[in-house]
């Protein structure tokens, strides 16, 4: 997957969790949770959805690496290379 494809996957998952989330004005370097007003329960859904779709295991210790859209892309790029 390319960087843009990975970005779109994450955004699509967020939209799926909260269909009213404002993704237009998202700053890719800032924490997703603060900008989208989501909580840890929603955050778990991003992890679970990635797992369901691409069979990637994300250990709890790695959750902080999914804090922003940019960091998600950095973290997921090597893991989704073959996807």
């Amino acid at each position, binding site marked *: 997957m390319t960087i843009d494809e990975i970005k779109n996957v994450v955004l699509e998952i967020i939209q799926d969790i909260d269909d009213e989330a404002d993704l237009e004005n998202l700053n890719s370097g800032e924490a997703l949770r603060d900008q989208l007003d989501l909580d840890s329960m929603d955050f778990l859904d991003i992890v*679970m959805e990635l*797992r*369901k779709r691409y069979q990637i295991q994300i250990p709890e210790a790695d959750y902080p690496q999914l804090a922003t859209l940019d960091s998600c892309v950095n973290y997921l790029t090597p893991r989704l290379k073959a996807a």
Partner: protein
Amino acid sequence: MRRYPLLIIGGGLSGLAAGIRFARFGQKVLILEKHVKAGGLNSYYHRRGRLFETGLHAITNYAPPADKHAPLNRLLRQLKIPRRTLKLRQQFSSEILFPERSSLCFSNDFSTLQSQVAENFPDSVQPFAAMIAALDAYDPFTPRPKISAREFVSSFLHDTLLVEMLFCPLMFYGSSDEDDMDISQFVIIFRAIYQEGFFRPQGTIKDLLGLLVTQYKNFGGELEFSTGVKEILTENDAIIGVRTASGEEIGCDYLISTAGYPETKRLFATPDTAAKFSTATEDKTSGRLSFTESIYLLDKPALKPITETRTIIFYNLSEQFTYHRPEKAVGLNSGVICFPENFEGGQNSDYIQLRVTHLANYDAWRHAYDADDKSLYAAMKKEWSERSKEVVCKIIGNYQKNIVYEDTFTPVTIERYTSRTQGAVYGSPEKIKDGRTNYENLYIAGTDQGYLGIVGSMLSGVTMVNHHILNKI
């Protein structure tokens, strides 16, 4: 032997919510429900071609759509149910009525209650505000030892009448403790009722249950009715599955029981395995609080003024409000009077529905039900519903002549259909707040995990799956 990653005992609201969470991410899960239909403590039945609800008066925790962190909105996101599909209807207004002493109205706008306190208890305005500030700062979801809510409230409010009035709805709508509550439970229900408020989705509990079951099945979840669990099967320190009433053994990696604390303990086959689950005895874990409820259909002209303004009335006639098992079969000195149609945008039905709930004595009803004389129980229902009508008529006006249909259920009815010991709808006074048990793969969800109300019970199922299971599979 069939085998599932997750088995859930109970197809009530918490079991369905837990099942939806697990199934949503493509995992196999089976819910076993003893009754012929879903809902548990919040179900329904048909009489004379009409649907009557059990349990649900109103749902607490109303929140506007923009408040994303409110329990209701978090829950709906977790279940992946778009809020608009529920068509939420807010209450008109509700009232805490201690006749000839005082009255407090409240609505889904917290300022209604604040101004009512200011009007009726002017000396308590500052202490009330101080208590609210303390409540707002309290995190009720961190497990900690039991603290008396009465002591907490009395440390702020010195007017005992106000204290009793504030406790009345909170106890009736969720306390499993006699005459007191744990502070965490108090904070949860105070927010849910006074700071958030009452609503109902369009339709009946049957529609809500149908929505949950459909969601669950669309995600691939399996649900079997008329399948009681007879025994929880263990091996060393782990659960390996269950044996159903028909004798089938079903294996599992994880088990969630929504049956209740003492009820789950009874499912262990040997004293040793039960003692490993919990050493607490049933006199400590079995709830003593149960209710009778009468459901009336009234023809239209009855009770006009009240039915147009009030959704729920919580009343108390005694010198001191008490909330414990009454000595007689029914405690008529207090109760809840509910008009389930009095929510915004209600359908214009041909009849007015009225529901009246009182504290009841389980032993008295059980004794009558088990008596050799089979007419005793029916006669007792009749007698107490007549006495209830006399009391309630003094509060809302005479509706007796307008009754076209009535039915009453008792603690025994609740026990028979939900398996809750002693018909204790709010479960055990001992809650298992983190849901963990001494068996590493058995978790408790629902009423005895300790979140309150309908939103709370579903959040309980969701949270137990999120915290304990989804992150391990």
